């Protein structure tokens, strides 16, 4: 689905990483760990076409990301649900409309009705549906971002620290949603520092753990 071959990236200065390869196979469940500043967010951004690799080949759904036009990237993003580390919303629209936004822009607004309610209940935001995003707490924002990422039922779900601001009970709840989606065949990639969460996940699905450190990516890391 998403494949990185020998990829390098630099923000202009020194290379953050080089010769990095990663394959997100359909239906796989992977965690990305590593020290702060190692480049986890950067790596994820390469995976959804927000950044372009400065070396190597990134292919999204069989297309070379370097040759994709803006509309191609837009279409690819409809197949990838992303939870950003700094979740941004349309601050003037209620939470419910923000969560339904990916369906809206894809011209699938009519599908929102039933799923939206259920999804909002799942992430515990039923009471906040009519609130504006700036009125949400940090954890509520993350839950809203996760709901927005999965509402289109995308093929791939990429989440950057999705449980950074939520309590243990809620993070288990969010994890179980992701595990559920993975069982339905979705590919999941989560950047996280939370070892307990990773351990819990490994008890539910066969999750692979990647570790990014000093510009190198280790796979199959044991905890």
């Amino acid at each position, binding site marked *: 689905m998403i494949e990185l071959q020998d990829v390098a990236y630099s923000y202009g200065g020194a290379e953050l990483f080089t010769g990095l390869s990663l394959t997100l196979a359909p239906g796989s469940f992977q965690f990305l760990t590593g020290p702060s500043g190692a480049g986890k967010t950067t790596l994820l951004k390469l995976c959804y076409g927000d*950044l372009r690799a400065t070396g190597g080949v990134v292919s999204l759904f069989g297309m070379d990301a370097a040759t994709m036009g803006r509309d191609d990237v*837009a279409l690819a993003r409809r197949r990838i649900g992303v939870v950003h580390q700094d979740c941004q919303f349309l601050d003037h629209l209620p939470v419910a409309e923000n969560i339904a936004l990916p369906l809206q*822009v894809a011209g699938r*607004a009519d599908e929102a009705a039933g799923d939206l309610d259920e999804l909002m209940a799942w992430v515990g935001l039923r009471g906040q549906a009519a609130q504006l995003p700036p009125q949400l707490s940090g954890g509520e924002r993350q839950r809203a971002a996760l709901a927005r990422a999965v509402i289109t039922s995308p093929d791939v779900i990429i989440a950057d620290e999705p449980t950074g601001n939520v309590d243990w009970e809620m993070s288990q709840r969010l994890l179980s949603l992701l595990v559920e989606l993975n069982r339905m065949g979705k590919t999941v990639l989560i950047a996280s520092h939370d070892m307990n969460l990773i351990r819990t996940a490994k008890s539910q699905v066969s999750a692979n753990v990647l570790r990014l450190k000093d510009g190198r990516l280790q796979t199959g890391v044991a905890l």
Partner: protein
Amino acid sequence: MIGAVTEALSRALALLVGDPQADRAVPPTGFTARLTIFTAGAMAFLAVFAIALSLATGRLADRWSAELARTATLRISAPADQADAQIRAALTVLDQTPGVASARALTDDEERALLEPWFGPDLPLASLPIPQLIEIVETAEGYDPIGLRARLQAEVPGAVLDDHTRWRTPLVAAANRLRSLGWVALLLIAGATAAMITLAAQSALSANAQVIRVMRLVGARDTYIARAFVRRFTLRAALGAAIGSALGVLAVMALPDGGDAGGFLTGLGFQGAGWLVPLLIPPLAAIVAFFATRAAALRTLRSQA
């Protein structure tokens, strides 16, 4: 070819009809909206006057040059016994003059008809020393009045050339120039409108950088994002232009009517079907705003990640 045009048109229409939900994605901004409406209105108001000026000077130029093209007259005052000889001599000279299409002595009946308004129908023409008139019709190039006068003076001493409409030639040129200036002013107004709409759209786009970023991240295409902006600015420009041109037309209607005597100044206005021309201003403003905003939006979007 036709298919491509129809497709472009239907895409433009789809952009305009839009989807109200896409519009909601961009927060409304009362201030730029009012500025855009005001600007479009002011420009439409000016456009009405530019059009009125062009149409009025156009009419003036046409009328004057039509009169110019008509005729000059040669007046021959001679003692009765020499009159016929002088007329023949004058006609010979005129026949040989380049630029004269035809020349013809008016008959007594025609002269009587000309004088009738002043002296009544029973004028005894034969007993009065009325000058004989020769009507000259020019060719398009016209003749050289100075040369003609010199020849006439030598050969037909009693002849006076009256090319009374000739003084209008520079006026016709001025009227034509004024008409072109009116159209240039109209083009400038359209250009200034496009420039101002572009600036307004650009400021709206940069004020909504986060909206654009979020929309891109959830998979919106550029055209979807552009649509909300394009629709808004197009409708605002059309609304402003409608108000502005309505006020402009009212102002033109309110110009004092100087009757026939007013000539050029009070002739500034519309006649007949000319009144319909200002109706074109709002749709044209909308078209200008549509393309200006679309270009600005797509340019801004492409410059982003």
